[in-house]
């Protein structure tokens, strides 16, 4: 579903992403791990067509993001880090706008998509509040609702549980697990327990390079008996 081929991105003198390749199939939940500044967000921004790669490309559902970024954007649902949204709009107005721009042009179709997204993310109680008045957890859910509103075949989620309380984290994980049955999901995180909880595969990057691409069980088998964060530390040590 998502095929990432040798992506490279340089900012000034810093090579943020250096030849990262991997594939995500339908039904996969890929945990994207790495220390802060390792290039996770940059890689995701290149997959979603927000940043243009210096070399390499990403192919989503057979479409090359370098050749037809708008078509790729149609296929993807993307939750950017810290879930940006227009603060002066109400939840319903905001999701209505997203639905319209996602091609649901009739009032009935728009309404149906908004209802579905509001239901999935439990936003009904705040639907008429402006986004600037919402708590962090609700803002994150609005970002989520926006990403899955058009029922995309592939989801890219940049730290979807960041800033949520333990109950909300659980809820979001359930939601992701539930949706991943027929979707390809990439989620970045630096919470290692999250990877064990929901991911079917793990990728670790360090200093812009891929250092591991395996199942959580294989990762654990690298150092039997060790905790996950110890394995993580030994793999990304070069960052310290």
């Amino acid at each position: 579903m998502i095929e990432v081929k040798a992506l490279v991105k340089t900012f000034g003198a810093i090579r943020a992403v250096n030849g990262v390749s991997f594939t995500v199939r339908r039904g996969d939940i890929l945990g994207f791990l790495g220390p802060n500044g390792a290039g996770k967000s940059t890689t995701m921004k290149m997959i979603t067509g927000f940043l243009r790669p210096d070399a390499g490309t990403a192919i989503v559902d057979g479409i090359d993001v370098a050749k037809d970024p708008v078509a790729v954007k149609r296929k993807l649902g993307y939750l950017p880090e810290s879930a940006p949204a227009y603060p002066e709009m109400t939840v319903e107005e905001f999701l209505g706008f997203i639905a319209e721009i996602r091609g649901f042009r009739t009032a009935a179709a728009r309404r149906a998509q908004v209802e579905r997204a509001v239901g999935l993310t439990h936003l009904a109680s705040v639907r008429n509040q402006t986004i600037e008045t919402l708590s962090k957890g609700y803002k994150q859910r609005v970002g989520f609702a926006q990403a899955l509103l058009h029922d995309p075949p592939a989801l890219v989620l940049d730290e979807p549980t960041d800033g949520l309380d333990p109950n909300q984290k659980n809820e979001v994980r359930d939601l992701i697990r539930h949706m991943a049955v027929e979707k390809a999901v990439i989620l970045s995180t630096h919470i290692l327990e999250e990877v064990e909880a929901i991911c079917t595969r793990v990728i670790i990057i360090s200093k812009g390079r891929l250092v591991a691409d395996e199942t959580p069980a294989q990762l654990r088998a690298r150092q039997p008996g060790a905790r996950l964060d110890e394995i993580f530390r030994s793999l990304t040590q070069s960052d310290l």
Partner: protein
Amino acid sequence: MQQIGPLFKREFLGYFRSPVAYVFLVVFLFTSVGLAFFVGGFFKANLASMESFFVFHPWLFLFLIPAAGMRLWAEEKRTGTVELLFTLPVTTLEAVLGKFLAAWAFLTLAILLSLPLALTVGWLGSPDWGVIASSYLGSILMAGAYLGVCSLTSALTKNQVISFVLSVLACFVLLCLGWSVFSGVLGTVLPVWAVDLVANFSFITHFDAFTKGIVDPKDVAFFLSLAGFTLFLNIVVLER
């Protein structure tokens, strides 16, 4: 191009979701009419004409249009919604045009709010309606050209203050080139043809004809091409 509709709608209604629109409209109306009444000698002239109203527009726009345009892109960059916008299936051209047209429509509304003044003039005397109509057209076109400049400078930064100062500076240069005081100084060092050439790039030179009732295609083309050129640069800046 079909994405311009929803973008336009969101942006235009966005002005009215915050107090900004109402403050702007009131300030615009009070200063434009106030200048005509107290500085332009609207009553003293004892003429059924709106010339003393329109003559201040190039100077009024110098401050008020950067105030309306500074947030166009700077705000999206600061809040991170630019990442949301450009991971939705829209092209840069659609986004730039949608936002520009919405802001232009808003400014047109601000200009047209002075229509009661025109009606009062018509009730008290018998003005030349052709001149009033061409003045309104000129003012709206000039607002579009100013706004193009402001949209461009707004895309250069995520700081609204910098965006405002840059816009005022750029517009001031474009204004001064045709200002009689500046042309007089220039005339002492340059031959007449050179002064005329420079003045050709000014808002004032092209706006003057409209206030005298002349709709010259050259002047219309000037304002539209200035807006078009700055919006083209705007796209280049955003795609960098």
